[in-house]
């Protein structure tokens, strides 16, 4: 099955129209080196945004600035799409509890603290979209939530939406050691896979009953939140985000995915380099973790930062993304993860795509975010220099045309650097809106 070319069963709805009055006027960012990702870098480029969307991108000579545009000089800076983190635990939410290993009815939507300091730090790190997930201590710990990192203090206003209007997200799954515990949790890998298979078989049975009822309410099976969650996985609406590290665990995910036909993004994939041929030939997206040292747990003992380069070598560059797994990697260090993969042999182009358009595709959001193209959401970051340099800072982060982080602003700087009070959760939309209005 070629997962990359699966027809998009789901088209994300636009977020509710951005409300800031300030955005009625077009903003023109002029003079930066612009990295649209969708096309070649533009020296002395222009980015025009209005009402939360990108109006124009191009070389200065080729873009006519709107007459009423507010011009912002970003000469000497680098401008690129906002970063997309496919795997984050900011917000302090827990999904499933200790009662069972498979709980697909549980939603992160109901658990995330959207005023968590971690979301502010993510803004300081240039992250504009996050897939916030529950942990890997369950075979299936629940429904994830795709979040636009805006300062609104309301998770309902922050989440992307499916076409049916429901909050958008995937399904978190895990195999390997984290989800092996005392009963009722599985004690072995074989048992882990058997429990997952049983669940999907049960969902298929449920589906059959639903279809047999043929719309007759009296024949419908009782509603079952867990099975409904699984059906969204089987239908392809909800992508499985699968924690997996060891080479054999990775192949187990592929086997189950093929058996039940669910769409999957492999996460962490510490030993991807060992099974890069299999991953590339099956065209499975990989969101890779980058850690400073192998080990810390048995299934990460053979972690190798070369995995991304090995996939790229096999023609799978578009399938590679990185993630923070915040709090494994601090959200402010997301760019660094890609840079360390470059150190280990990845091309710079793939590294930047792996922070933007590739993860956007993994979240079914590439029609809205991930590149700087006309019509896409105005999510972008202004950098002081090369995105892959330690000496570079995120100077500003813009989400849907609103500046949510400004390194020159003392309050925002606290999120970038840390310092007294930096650990206290709050939300900019309430405390600092006045500072953030664009004049």
């Amino acid at each position, binding site marked *: 099955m070629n997962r990359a070319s699966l027809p998009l069963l789901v088209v994300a709805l636009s977020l509710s129209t951005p409300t800031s009055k300030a955005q009625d006027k077009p903003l023109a960012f002029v003079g930066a080196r612009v990295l649209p990702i969708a096309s070649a870098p533009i020296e002395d480029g222009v980015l025009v945004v209005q009402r939360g969307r990108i109006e124009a991108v191009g070389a200065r000579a080729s873009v006519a600035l709107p007459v009423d545009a507010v011009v912002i000089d970003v000469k000497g800076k680098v401008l690129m799409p906002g970063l997309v983190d496919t795997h984050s635990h900011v917000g302090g939410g827990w999904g499933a509890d200790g009662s069972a290993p498979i709980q697909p009815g549980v939603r992160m939507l109901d658990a995330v603290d959207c005023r968590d300091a971690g979301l502010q730090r993510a803004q300081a790190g240039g992250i504009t979209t996050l897939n916030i997930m529950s942990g890997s201590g369950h075979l299936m710990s629940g429904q994830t939530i795709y979040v636009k990192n805006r300062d609104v203090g309301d998770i309902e206003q922050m989440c992307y939406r499916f076409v049916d209007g429901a909050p958008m997200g995937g399904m978190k799954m895990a195999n390997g050691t984290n989800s092996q515990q005392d009963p009722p949790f599985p004690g072995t890998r074989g048992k882990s896979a058997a429990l997952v298979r049983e669940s999907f078989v049960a969902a298929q049975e449920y589906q059959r009953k639903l279809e047999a009822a043929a719309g007759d309410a009296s024949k419908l099976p009782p509603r079952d939140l867990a099975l409904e969650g699984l059906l969204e996985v089987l239908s392809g609406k909800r992508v499985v985000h699968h924690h997996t590290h060891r080479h054999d665990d990775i192949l187990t995910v592929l086997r189950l995915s093929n058996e039940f036909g669910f769409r999957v993004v492999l996460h962490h994939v510490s030993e991807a380099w060992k099974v890069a041929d299999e991953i590339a030939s099956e065209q499975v997206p990989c969101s890779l973790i980058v850690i400073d*040292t192998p080990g810390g747990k048995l299934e990460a003992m053979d972690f190798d930062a070369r995995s991304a380069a090995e996939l790229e070598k096999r023609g799978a560059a578009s399938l590679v993304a990185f993630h923070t797994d915040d709090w494994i990697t601090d959200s402010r260090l997301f760019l660094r993860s890609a840079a360390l993969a470059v150190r280990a042999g990845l091309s710079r182009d793939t590294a930047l795509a792996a922070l933007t358009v590739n993860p956007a595709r993994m979240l079914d959001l590439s029609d809205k975010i991930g590149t700087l193209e006309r019509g896409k959401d105005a999510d972008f970051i202004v950098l002081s220099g090369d995105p892959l340099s330690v000496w570079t800072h995120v100077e500003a982060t813009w989400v849907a045309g609103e500046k949510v982080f400004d390194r020159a602003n003392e309050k925002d700087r606290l999120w970038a650097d840390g310092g007294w009070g930096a650990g206290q959760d709050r939300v900019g939309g309430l405390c600092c809106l006045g500072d953030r209005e664009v004049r």
Partner: protein
Amino acid sequence: MKLVRGLLSLGVGLALSGALVAQDIAVRAQRLHTVSGAVIENGVVLVRSGKISAVGRASEVQIPSGMRTLAAAVVTPGLIDAHSVVGLAGYLNQPQDQDQHDPAAPIQPELRAIDAYNARERLIEWLRGFGVTTIHTGHGPLALISGQTLIAKTRGDTVDESVFVPCAMIAATLGADSRAEGPGKSPGTAGKQVALLREAFLAAREHQRKLREAGDDAAKKPERNLRHEALIDVLERRVPLLVTAQRHQDISSALRLAREFDFALVLDGASEAYVVLDEIKAAGVSVIAHPPMARFGGELENASRATPKKLADAGLRFAFQSGYESYVPKTRVVLYEAAIAAANGLGADAALRAITLDAARILGVDARIGSLEVGKDGDLALYDGDPFEYTTHCTATVIEGVLVSEGAR
């Protein structure tokens, strides 16, 4: 191993008609950071019998004919990780490879690091690959007094081949990580932590008094007590007390204890040091700062990447550590950590000094390591660019004239 090295040097010596031994090496650098002096463009370091015999411009230092010669864009002194648990804590993070903390009692200064150090631990090899040639490691920041630390080179197959300071410091910890929770558990509060430490030092002082009074009279000597003996080393300033304290009030408590018992204090972690800079400076205490990439939560909720710059501006001596990690990554890398500080106000020169010469000074081994000066150990790190840049590689590591790691990492 020593025998093998001996034979090897003999063999090489014969082959090159006598002049050179295995611990001879020359290193050329486009940029040579001596740290003790100015950066030398197109520099050369000669190492003879493991010690630096010459440092200077390529035009001034002649490389003896036939001497093994390495070259790199940038060369620095071997890096020093000023506080780690590597070697006691293993990379698998399973019970059998975790010896950094024995939970039986809150105060166990008698636990020697040399009895637990695994010189073949893979994490040591890992650090060496980034140019780290010396680690100060041992019992972890997980008990009021968890035990002793040691200083080792990141080479050697046994503890004796690696370690050059068997008891470097005694590791104490204030704050949440050394607090015991639950009914009947102690120490459960900050006040109790300090009370227990004071009692331990008072007991050691009493033992010290009895020993002094007994003089050479064996009959009058008190029974040996390993715990008191270890703390007497602290009271008599032979061994510093390394106190891990993140909160400002715990830092102040450590300074207060040091005043009361007049021991040599080294502050560790110190994430809120910027609140009590004057106090630390007045005490003349050095700081082994928390890793700038440590997780900013819990006791580190007020941590700041600007702290190293503030320590530098205050004139305090400080170094960086890989620290203690209970999960992933199992160790950090001081090269990476110093890089973050460098890019957040500290600057490259001060950051490099903190992981070389200033670390050596804090550890009391600067006569031997920490800078490229004639007579010091031939410990070198070679890089293909700016050492702090994310995409730069460490291409080789040399310890006492021996190439111990090569290949880009």
